[in-house]
């Protein structure tokens, strides 16, 4: 256990006879104590071999950084870069013509790109609302990844590995930073595969909690076992009061051990979580004008919920905002997919900004790879684009990124990275840097090896950091 950090007494372990004494001597409020007590006690017991990152206690990262929270909007299905944030007017010359070295024929985007904001960032007309926050967006146009298959590429994006079970980006984040509100999970997933939120070999403290959240679904069951369907709150309070008496008695005869104290606290924390979590997820508590700002629909609700969570200290929120696999009928279909996220995402950025939270919150939008510049036959309304992993785009906002910029570039036809390529590992390295970590040093020793999010790879993309 990391008691020495609390006691300000480095390297020495202090034993406390009981909870009260502990509180007294550490001068800690209950919140901080609860955080410190939520921990991997085995690692604590073996402090000699474990590092310090084994509790949920809020930690300062080693490097100066602005971002303290992440909202990751995962645009699964692989959005076309050519129709969203990477204009390729030159494709027009190749309409219906074979492209060098490619099968299929040139398929210029059916959409106009508009210069938006003071920065003049070019954004497709399918995102009219995002255009209004263009000066906060940092578009990365030179992302690339390893395989054009959804499952594998999405796994790489979320965990840094295509095939193996590795901790997710959110898990690494909470492992590095702890959390700010122990009454809520530090990492919340609003939908998506279990693999994308897994802690893998990291202690389960850092695993993303699956939130069963959707507009109009009751919020009291949003987390596993959150709702008691058998007792009222009064009855439960009575139960916990009894439990504390029993535990205190137990500690008189049982040996003193911090684990026992920690477990007692965890019940109080759980009790509070029952009340606080539903409140945090309850977007009906928002004033009407805020709800209107985000608009209607599933994503509007989820992004608004994400803001509420971040505001309450949740470290990492993951949102599954898929539907981008436009193999056919792209022109019609992508409009709908874009519309679903356009207003909510723009609202999220504006809302965070109004509350002074944008600086400390990194918002990420992007998919697992991009799409081809070609269509399989004559270009028409039914045309679509196939999978393409050599280049794609994503945007970030807030959290210390350079707003109103486009970083990197693809070639004239959007088929390959032309400059400043950013591999997923580089992207991860950059996100960790924005959170205050050197990605090569945020490691976890497991089974004889030090693991990190970026494996052996990754370089920080300095160009996106303000």
């Amino acid at each position: 256990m990391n008691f020495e950090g609390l006691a300000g007494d480095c390297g020495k372990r202090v034993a406390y006879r009981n909870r009260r004494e502990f509180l007294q001597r550490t001068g800690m409020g209950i919140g901080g104590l609860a955080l410190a007590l939520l921990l991997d006690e085995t690692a604590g017991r073996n402090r000699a071999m474990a590092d310090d990152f084994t509790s949920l206690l809020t930690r300062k990262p080693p490097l100066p950084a602005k971002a303290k929270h992440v909202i990751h909007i995962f645009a699964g299905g692989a959005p076309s870069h050519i129709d969203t944030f990477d204009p390729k007017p030159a494709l027009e010359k190749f309409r219906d013509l074979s492209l060098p070295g490619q099968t299929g024929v040139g398929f210029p985007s059916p959409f106009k790109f508009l210069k938006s904001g003071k920065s003049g960032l070019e954004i497709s007309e399918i995102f009219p609302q995002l255009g209004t926050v263009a000066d906060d967006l940092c578009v990365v146009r030179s992302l690339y990844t390893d395989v054009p298959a959804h499952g594998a590429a999405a796994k790489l994006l979320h965990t840094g590995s295509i095939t193996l079970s590795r901790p997710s980006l959110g898990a690494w984040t909470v492992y590095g930073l702890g959390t700010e509100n122990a009454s809520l999970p530090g990492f919340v997933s609003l939908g998506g595969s279990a693999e994308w939120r897994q802690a893998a070999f990291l202690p389960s403290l850092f695993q993303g909690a699956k939130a069963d959240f959707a507009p109009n679904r009751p919020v009291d069951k949003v987390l596993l076992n959150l709702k008691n369907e058998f007792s009222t709150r009064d009855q439960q309070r009575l139960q916990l009061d009894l439990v504390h008496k029993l535990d205190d008695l137990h500690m008189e005869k049982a040996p003193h051990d911090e684990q026992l104290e920690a477990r007692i606290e965890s019940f109080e924390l759980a009790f509070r979580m029952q009340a606080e979590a539903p409140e945090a997820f309850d977007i009906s508590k928002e004033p009407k004008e805020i709800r209107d700002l985000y608009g209607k629909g599933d994503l509007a609700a989820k992004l608004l919920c994400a803001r509420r969570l971040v505001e309450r200290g949740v470290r990492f929120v993951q949102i599954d905002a898929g539907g981008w696999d436009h193999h056919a009928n792209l022109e019609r279909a992508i409009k709908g997919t874009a519309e679903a996220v356009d207003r909510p995402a723009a609202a999220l950025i504006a809302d965070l900004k109004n509350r002074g939270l944008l600086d400390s919150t990194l918002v990420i939008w992007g998919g697992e790879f991009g799409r081809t510049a070609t269509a399989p036959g004559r270009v028409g309304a039914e045309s679509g684009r196939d999978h393409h992993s050599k280049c794609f785009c994503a945007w970030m906002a807030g959290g210390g990124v350079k707003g109103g910029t486009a970083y990197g570039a693809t070639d004239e036809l959007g088929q390959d990275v032309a400059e400043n390529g950013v591999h997923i590992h580089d992207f991860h390295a950059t996100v960790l840097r924005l959170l205050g970590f050197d990605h090569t040093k945020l490691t976890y020793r497991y089974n004889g090896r030090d693991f990190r999010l970026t494996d052996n790879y990754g370089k920080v993309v300095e160009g996106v950091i303000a």
Partner: protein
Amino acid sequence: MKAFSLAGLLIAVATLAETTPDPAKLAFFETKVRPVLSEHCYKCHSGIEGKSKGDLTLDTRGGWEKGGEHGPAIVPGKPDDSVLFKAITYTDPDLRMPPKKEGGKLSDADIGILRQWIAEGAADPREGAGKRLSGMTPEARAHWAFQSLHKPAAPVVKDSTWPKTDIDRFVLAKLESNQMTPNGPAEKEALLRRASYDLIGLPPSVDEINAFLADTSPKAFEKVIDRLLDSPQYGERWARHWLDSARYSDTTGLVGDGGKSRFADYRYEYAWTYRDYVIRALNEDKPYNQFLMEQLAADQLPGVATNDWRLAALGFITVGKRFENPDDQIDEQIDTTTKAMLGLTVSCARCHDHKFDPIPTADYYSLHGVFANLSEPIETPEIPCQFDPSARDDFEQKLADLEKKNRDILYSAIHKIIADFQARSEGYLMVLAMKPRTVERSDVAKSYHVNGDDYHVKEVLRSIRLGPDNPVFGPYARLARLSTNEFAEKAPETLAKALSDHKVTVNRLVAEALVGKKPQSLREVAQIYAGLMSKVSSQTAELIRYRRTGADPAGFSDPAVAELIESACVIPSEKSIETTEKLSAYLSGAMAKKSGQAPPPFEPKTADSFIFSSINQLRLTHPGAPGRAMLVADKPKPAESYIYIRGNRNKKGAAVPRRFLEILSEGDRQPFTHGSGRLDLARAIGSPSNPLTARVAVNRIWMHHFGEGIVRTADDFGNMADKPSHPELLDYLAAKFIEDGWSMKKLHKEIMLSAVYQLGSDNNPAFEAKDPGNRLLWRANVRRLDFEAIRDSLVLLTGEMDQSMGGKPVNLTDEPYSYRRSIYGYVDRRKLSDLMSQFDFSDPEMANTRRISTIVPQQALFFMNSPMSVDVARHVMDRAEVGEATNDDQRVTAIYRVLFQRKPQAREILWAREFIARAEPLHSESGKFKLPATASTTPRKRNEGKKPREMKDKYAVVQNQGEKVVRANLTAWESYTQALLCSNEFAYIY
């Protein structure tokens, strides 16, 4: 390959930073310089890979210091004077490196990196500190764990009264040298609880406690140990520990976007037979080395019959995560085998020599050769195992129905392809004649309404083979090569040639239709084909029936008709695909390799319509379904594996013989001689002279008794391992283990009879300050029960624990609940149940013996709110001994006996009365309590709306039969009992 190579690098950075003065420079070397050298230079200048062109190696500091033909390659601080720098800048026309054929001049960025590195003094850790950066050093070889095992004598101790056994003398000697003394012994109740949880994973019963308390003989505890070791529940507890090491799971973890995983269920149908083997082997106290050997080579051991229960042991090899890439599969097997059995991280040597341990890449590929020469037979043997033979007929009937349904799906999909082609063959042939993904082709497709986005059209298009030698389409294919302008002119000649080509037997009906024709356009030819297809189309259904039944009522005496029909898609005989396994092999293309029977090119939509998952569901849930061993077999002609340079299978190095790891071999290593070498490998691992096997095993057993191992890195005994707290004790235990015939049960007893095992767990602030981790064992560790022990205890309290052993997996965490022990739980490695991971269940991704133990509010929520905890509380109140109580005090006493196996203290009875008094009014006002409207019986909706049905089916978990927990307010007494379940006393041993 990027994602698979290993991260030795960052370990190097971290450790060097501690030992050398300038970490920044070394970090620069590791992150910038080393990649350049290894990428561009090692191919020709690497000692480890045996390449030293120009007598120069660049993979050690010594290499460039000594230099090659041109003298020292680098002058630290002076790039311009360094031969290496001159070479890479191409300044000397006679020495330009890397040469053109190896990629030519480096990029300016790379040159800049090397310049900076040399200019700043060429800091290079690849020697000196090399003990940690290369395992190929004498220091790495000298590591204690690789030295042969000798049994040390127990040390002399000052306090001769405390030790009960030699184990105690080792422990006490350490304590004494640190001026510490061990705690007093544990209370008898605590000791019994500890022993009981340790050996069988369950708390003692009240009777057992009373018997132990009453037994004042010196052998009292020994009797307890014997009783527990004899209990079949011992195997159910300890099998789980080994299953952690063996990364046991009931699922493949492989859910690809395509590939072979489409045509098999994602769940293993027989993983449970491996689990049951482990339980039985442990209960029989099978010698541990024999236990290991059976898991690698049971089928090759003497006396193992073809339907022997021990064949299930082979599941160890294949029950892991599955990969599409065979090399990843082999890597997984090497990784698990070496970690689980040897405590070695051999798979670190896949791409480079191990950075810390003396395991060269060549040794990795020696083991690669073993696993590469394994195959999984399509048919596996039925073995004796737990199932209900009286329900077998019912199972077989249901299975036959489902399998037939699955074949019906196949034949109807094939029929659809053929019929669609026959109906629109002109269009299909016209489209197929054109270059794919062109405007022209899409225009033609449109005009024929053959939409390439339609999955069904795609299947037809991919199914037709337009080769020039195809007996049906050959002539068409040859004509299709003619350009439009010259078509009319050249067609007759081309056609004549095609029909008279001796190498190809053109289908008789096709030849008859085409002979002498002078087509003006390709379209005309396509129309001729269309005519033919339409003529035979009425016989398609007949032909399918014929292929299925073998009966030939329609008289397919004219094979030309059948050939025309099957030109769209070959119809397999039903016999060749009669079992699920065969059908799966056929569909995944595995049969194509053997018999040339290629599967139809089904698109995902069709592929997902098969019901492999329902069949597996039946096998996994029907009581009459028998079990089979997850068998492996050696390939008939085993071949050596090649070293893949830097793990890249396209860059083959030397072939290496299949043989054991050099560092663990005595004398002259011999190549493996039996088939794949599994048996030889098994014997080498199980050999008493192997320095690791016994040490790793006894350390784990120790760990499960004390909460921590003597070496805390239970699966890594290499140079990066944790330092043993009591090295001599470890060796003593390991040597004794071998002496005692590798008996795990004897070892348990030896450990548990020691005074150190029986210590009390009281804290001692002075000692805690000195030894906070209790490494010296002055006290017993306080331990939270693991997931299985918590759940099993809860189930036990219900009084309805299903004590039957073995058999198919049950769902541990979802309603309706199972009352079986947790060892029988279904484990999904891709989607581990949230509850299990909240309670730190071992990640079944890879071998991992040491569990962590966290404390999070989600665990508390489980005790407070889950239907399971309520179910237990209610059951406790329903137990006879509780029901028989005639007053509140008796009732409290009865509840305490059930839950804690002790009498309540006076205070506790008082609190109970208070609780009931205050709780009852709350509960009697239950009109206020609103039950959730739909909660009682409606099953929870999953995957609402979004996902297609077949997905749901495909990833289905195992569900139990039974009732859900009734959603109704607890009574005051139920509420009281549930509160007791939340207490620390319930969840800890100490």
